[in-house]
């Protein structure tokens, strides 16, 4: 636990000294622009458009940050050989990975929190009603970002090329939002083997289609059972990716 915390601390500090806050500044600009656009164009639905665009911008900026950071997270330390010194201390490689991952997630989460707070405050300031749970929508976005972080980390170690890892991460992000479509396609395919293959693929990709409270927000309050299952799903999917990353990392020589 102590070593995870030590790695977590330095990772968080490292990120906060580098790039994450640039994302927040960018978000500020996007949000102001979207607020202006929303009030000019959306008529009765200004609040809805402002809410959707704000949450979407928050998630998009967090996605770019988390994929970029996690893909470089270990490879850069291998490149700079900083990993030599860490791993020549009594640190389990899996603990090192976990500490690095959690530190990165915390940095991105802090950025998302700041963005979310600014967005929510702006909505309140404008007097636009926010019906539904902003916190739940924000938490779902954070969980999606955690899943993507764990997945990109695994891909960066399994593929070794940063460009390939980033491309596959974006591919999985899109595939994840198509999981419902893929299962629909599997049902309609008429070929049992093809159907099974598509279904298996849809389960291997993260199921973001059923996770996206941000998109389902306007449909009303979700079933509490859904929220619980979604939380377990996020933890389990992250756990599986991190365990696979640890398996690959254990085999590596430096």
């Amino acid at each position: 636990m102590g070593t995870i915390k030590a790695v977590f601390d330095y990772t968080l500090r490292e990120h906060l000294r580098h790039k994450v806050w640039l994302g927040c500044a960018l978000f500020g600009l996007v949000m102001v622009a979207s607020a202006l656009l929303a009030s000019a164009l959306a008529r009765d639905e200004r609040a809805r458009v402002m809410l959707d665009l704000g949450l979407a911008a928050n998630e998009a900026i967090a996605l770019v940050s988390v994929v970029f950071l996690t893909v470089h997270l270990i490879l850069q330390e291998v490149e700079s050989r900083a990993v030599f010194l860490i791993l020549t201390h009594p640190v389990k490689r899996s603990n090192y990975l976990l500490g690095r991952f959690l530190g990165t997630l915390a940095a991105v989460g802090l950025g998302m929190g700041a963005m979310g707070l600014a967005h929510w405050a702006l909505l309140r300031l404008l007097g636009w009603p926010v019906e539904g749970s902003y916190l739940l929508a924000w938490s779902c976005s954070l969980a999606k970002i955690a899943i993507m972080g764990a997945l990109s980390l695994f891909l960066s170690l399994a593929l070794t090329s940063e460009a390939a890892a980033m491309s596959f991460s974006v591919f999985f992000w899109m595939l994840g939002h198509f999981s419902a479509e893929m299962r629909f396609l599997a049902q309609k395919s008429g070929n049992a083997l093809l159907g099974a293959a598509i279904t298996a693929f849809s389960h291997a990709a993260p199921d973001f289609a059923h996770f996206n409270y941000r998109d389902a927000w306007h449909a009303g309050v979700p079933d509490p059972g859904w929220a619980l299952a979604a939380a377990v799903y996020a933890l389990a999917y992250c756990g599986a990716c991190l365990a696979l990353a640890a398996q690959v990392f254990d085999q590596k020589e430096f």
Partner: protein
Amino acid sequence: MRPLAAAAAFAAAALASGAAMSARAREFPSLSELPATPFTLQDASLASFGLRAAAADLAWVQMLQYVGASLPGLPADRPGRPYDHLLTLALRVARLDPSFHRSYLYAAGILGWFRGVDRPEEAVALLQEGIRRDPGEPLYALYLAALAYKQKGETDRMIALLESAFEDPRTPSQMKTILANARKARGEYAQALALWERILETPRDQAQHARARLQIAQLKRLMHPASPLPSPPR
């Protein structure tokens, strides 16, 4: 535990919880159900990046643009057939996000009640789609009933029914203006004035506030001919 064994255990937990999650989640219409428009690629791209609600918002803004003037990329309406593409554009919003209630009601309001449009069958089709997607939404049935009264010429009952939903937050401001204008056209200035005043008091109807001020002044002049003319909205 070895990493591979841990990965297998986590994967099993993800499969089980994923099944429970998807069984309880709200399903969206398949993207293949989107009506064919020049904007299909835009919609599919946004949806595939997890921005379905934002895609619906953009489709809503484009629909407003179409209603207000014209929408670049869309073929022009046939001569004498205004709002030729409105049903398609409204269905596009609805199928991107079936819970976009105001979009159904707004488009149905134009198709069913706008002077010179006269497409009640399209309004009915749209509202029926709304009921199919969201059977618990009472306003769709209420609008269908109001349309039926309109078809039968029972204007009093139609107005009374629509006014019962006047304060509902989902009622589009444009529908409220239709109602106020209907009162005015019937010479019911006091009732029309009351409706415009309610529009002016509702922050959500801000898009109609300038128009409401103008109408209130006009109605006051009609009711009391000595009152001064208002300055036009800036």
